[in-house]
């Protein structure tokens, strides 16, 4: 099986999808000839021609608005927003139009499209190249929200997203593009090559939307997380020796609540972990659900570890990022409480 980075896996997902279904079109800023600033669409224009993969003007609302029209026509657009931080001009089209098209037209018009965007920090990108806006999408009914943490999942989830009949927000943790980053920014970079989830089939396969993965079994505490933080959680568990069960949500909306409650009922403790700003983040929803469904199993409150309620700073990036030290400390505090 070929070994892929997350970038290669994402590219392969689009390639496979374009090959199988000529209604799939790909566009966005710099995605055509050049192949995208993160190179996720490299070679697709050369292979499928300029009308299936092309550059778009710097208008995120235009990109998404046009994609909605295309989807209504019968195409399956898979568009790129260069950074999640730049999706805001498209937020109206995503939440008020794409998300409600099926509903308001009584399924006369639907919106099968994928909006890919790199998310998260860890690359010294400052407050406008580091954001994790997933909670701004999980509050919007009609959207699906996906965040992969490995090349294998990235490919399988992206193919599933492209094939989904509804609009999918596909958030790509950019710090994972080239390796399974565990938050130890001061250590040498680990490439994907050595990681089991870098074994990615060449052809078509899907990882179904709405199913979480238990990436580490454990009995002491459940860590509910996604994206980059899956790897940080694993490092923290390893380093503290606390036997955490780690649930990688993979899809945030619709949520695999079953997988979460099953685990929390077993461990009796729950940490919710994400990189996004704490207040009103998706962790609030997760904590609310866990206490609602597992109240009588909990030995202590659900603990949230998240980015601080500040913009993502440039110089203080590693003070902001909820790395293994912070997660580890929180785990220890939970076990002692």
């Amino acid at each position, binding site marked *: 099986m070929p070994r892929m980075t997350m970038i290669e896996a994402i590219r392969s997902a689009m390639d496979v999808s374009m090959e199988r279904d000529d209604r799939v079109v790909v566009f966005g800023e710099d995605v055509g000839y050049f192949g995208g600033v993160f190179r996720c669409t490299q070679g697709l224009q050369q292979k499928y021609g300029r009308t299936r993969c092309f550059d778009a003007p710097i208008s995120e609302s235009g990109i998404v*608005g046009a994609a909605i*029209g295309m989807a209504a*026509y019968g195409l399956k657009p898979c568009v790129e927003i260069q950074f999640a931080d730049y999706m805001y001009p498209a937020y109206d089209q995503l939440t008020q139009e794409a998300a409600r098209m099926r509903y308001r037209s*009584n399924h006369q018009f639907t919106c099968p499209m994928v909006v890919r965007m790199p998310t998260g920090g860890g690359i010294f990108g400052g407050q406008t190249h580091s954001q994790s806006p997933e909670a701004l999408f999980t509050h919007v009914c009609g959207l699906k929200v996906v965040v992969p943490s490995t090349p294998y999942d990235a490919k399988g989830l992206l193919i599933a997203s492209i094939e989904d009949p509804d609009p999918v927000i596909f958030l790509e943790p950019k710090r994972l593009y080239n390796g399974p980053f565990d938050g130890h920014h001061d250590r040498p970079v680990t490439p994907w090559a050595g990681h089991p989830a870098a074994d990615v089939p060449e052809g078509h396969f899907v990882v179904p939307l709405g199913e979480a993965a238990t990436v580490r079994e454990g009995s002491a505490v459940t860590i509910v997380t996604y994206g980059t933080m899956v790897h940080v959680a694993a490092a923290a568990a390893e380093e503290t020796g606390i036997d955490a069960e780690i649930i990688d949500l993979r899809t945030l909306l619709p949520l695999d609540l079953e997988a979460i409650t099953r685990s929390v009922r077993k461990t009796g403790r729950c940490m919710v972990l994400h990189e996004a700003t704490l207040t009103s983040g998706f962790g609030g929803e997760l904590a609310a659900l866990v206490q609602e469904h597992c109240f009588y199993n909990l030995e202590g409150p659900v603990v949230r570890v998240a980015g601080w309620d500040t913009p993502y700073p440039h110089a203080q990036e590693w003070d902001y990022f909820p790395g293994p030290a912070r997660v580890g400390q929180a785990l220890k505090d939970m076990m002692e409480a």
Partner: protein
Amino acid sequence: MPMNDRLSLHVPEPEVRPGDKPDFSRVEIPEAGSVRRPPEDAEAESMRDLAYSIIRVMNRDGEAVGPWAGSLSDDEIIEGLRHMMTLRAFDQRMLMAQRQGKTSFYMQHLGEEAISCAFQKALKPGDMNFPTYRQAGLLIAGGYPMVDMMNQIYSNDADPLKGRQLPVLYSARSHGFFSVSGNLGTQYIQAVGWAMASAIRQGTEISAAWIGDGSTAASDFHAALVFASTYRAPVILNIVNNQWAISTFQGIARGGSGTFAARGLGFGIPALRVDGNDYLAVHAVSQWAANRARRNGGPTLIEHVTYRAGAHSTSDDPSAYRPKEESNAWPLGDPVLRLKNHLTLRGLWSEERHRQAEAEIRAEVIAAQKEAERHGTLHAGGKPSARDMFEDVYAEMPAHLKRQRQQAGV
């Protein structure tokens, strides 16, 4: 330009307000027949002047004159008159129904009937309109059943949209009518995307985008023009300039540009202004643009110059911000009357036939209304179920929505 050393803010105001005498002397109106008709494949650069004029076909006497005349047969013109009369009668009944509490809200077309009715006749099956709330003429002229429109307005148990949408935000894919959005401007770029898709698939269908004068200020107007210009999308970009955006006169959105059509010039998009109260002119210009688009000639922008003779919606009372008599003073007249005069002049129509048609149409509308009301009105009779509320959020209902539906006990 004043020569103060202090700056001051310019805030445009209409010439008149309630209590003042209506004044449309600033509206320059060229003679009918006087504006040239460029070939359908002419370069955009060769017709910049058309963005500052008004294409008109019917003159004061009701004759159809000039290079834009003659795009329709006699029967088609008679049919056009009936469509406009139908739309007007429909509006009257639905306004009354709203006042009677049979629905929550309504928006009429008074004075603007020619635009959507004539435009629709330039389209073919498979083409797609992306309308605003003020283009029901596209449905009437497109043969969509009035009773279904009323079912939507009443949110009753036969509402094609299951009660989910505000009245008049219709959706009729079968009739080339895209689901109307409550958010202004958003659909302008969607129409361009739809047209791009048709071009990507090497199809033959074109699309039509619709927006009001006020809404041209919205961001997505720009996105649409950028994309249409860059990818030469087969789309007709309609601006309905009815002089008002609720209480705000068109000068606030138009600013220092002479016309809304002028917006197209900065994009190299042909921009035509047309007398929106002239059914024949609207049709001719729309046909020109449709032909151009079908021949891969790309987008055309059309500014339909008209006047919103009625209130913005049933929630609005225009006497608070403009003179009551302003609508009578509007120099382009009434679209129904003008087409009626044209047909009468040509011996194709008469007072008699008009009264008869009015009676027939009224009867049709009332019959449709009766049928619709058998399915219920907003607060009485059949209504969509609370179950319907939970459907179609997604293709397949996810677990959390099933849970909620259960909680709701439906």
